[in-house]
């Protein structure tokens, strides 16, 4: 029995929805970069070293407007702050893994988090393969977009909805399987309130602070329901 093969197979099946989404979204990034005249070198190097869908789309903007580095740093912080939450909730699974943990943390995108956060404890190899496969799909998508953008301009409107579908489905599934809904409701309601008050571009950090505060305030009453 080859456990490494089994982990890879299980991880591949798990990541199929992300495969579809990342190829499509990656193509979007590649096309935009190509349209701005960037070479294949940059189109591939960006996803290798800064693996993040939302941030790469923003990078195209920052590049196109020749943004200064301080502006770039502040917008990165605003957009990416939610990743602190992912790290906090994966501490129990990841923190004793050793050097491999750095790659797992580096590759913890929204989609990888959505796939892994509810899973029972798996082998390190399984975590690695899920993270690595998603990373490969994303790089492949960006490269394909770059090539396509150099050859012909095309677009199928709406395919990027696949990632929204992934999040909506994960939410419904988690809701259905949970015994207690206070934490999920806190996440939805506080984010929604902050989205309305602060607007689409600035709501994530206030939402995170609010969620953390409310969850901690509810601790005494709610902790026993989450074991």
């Amino acid at each position, binding site marked *: 029995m080859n456990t490494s093969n089994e982990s890879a197979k299980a991880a591949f099946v798990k990541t199929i929805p992300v495969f579809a989404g990342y190829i499509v979204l990656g193509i979007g990034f590649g096309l935009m970069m190509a349209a701005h005249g960037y070479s294949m070198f940059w189109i591939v190097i960006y996803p290798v070293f800064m693996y993040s869908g939302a941030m790469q789309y923003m990078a195209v903007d920052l590049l196109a407007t020749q943004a200064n580095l301080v502006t770039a740093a502040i917008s990165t912080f605003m957009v990416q702050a939610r990743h602190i939450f992912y790290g906090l909730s994966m501490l129990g699974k990841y923190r004793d893994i050793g050097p491999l943990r750095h790659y797992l943390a580096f590759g913890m995108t929204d989609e990888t988090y959505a796939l892994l956060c509810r899973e029972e404890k798996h082998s390190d190899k399984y975590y690695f393969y899920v993270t690595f496969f998603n990373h490969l799909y994303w790089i492949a998508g960006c490269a394909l977009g770059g090539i396509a953008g150099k050859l012909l301009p095309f677009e199928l409107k709406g395919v990027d909805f696949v990632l929204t579908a992934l999040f909506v489905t994960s939410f419904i599934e988690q809701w259905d399987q949970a015994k207690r809904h206070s934490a999920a409701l806190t996440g939805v309601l506080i984010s929604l309130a902050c989205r309305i008050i602060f607007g689409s571009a600035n709501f994530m950090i206030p939402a995170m602070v609010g969620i953390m505060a409310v969850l901690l305030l509810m601790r005494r009453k709610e*902790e026993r329901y989450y074991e």
Partner: protein
Amino acid sequence: MNNMHTFLILAVLSIITIFLRELPYLVFGRGKTIPKWLEYLGKVLPFACMGMLLVYCLKDLSFASVSGFVPEALACGVILLLYLWKKNSLLCIIGGTVFYVALVNLVKW
């Protein structure tokens, strides 16, 4: 286009992203005891985070025009129905996406 600027932007974005993804492990890494309140947060955050991501992925909906929210709302409805019917997440994701793509390409909004 300017290669130095392209490189510096990549460096800044990449370093900050990696820093944010590593931060919890740097603070509460190996060998350090995880305080009780953090253990609790680790259990409830996955639920709260999916709620936050739900709002995040729909954050750009606009109620100013019909095309700004109806396709998304209908596609989310389809996902929910598919889930209640088969409880198969892959079916929900593919079904919802195909429905959405058909809706925005075939219907004149």
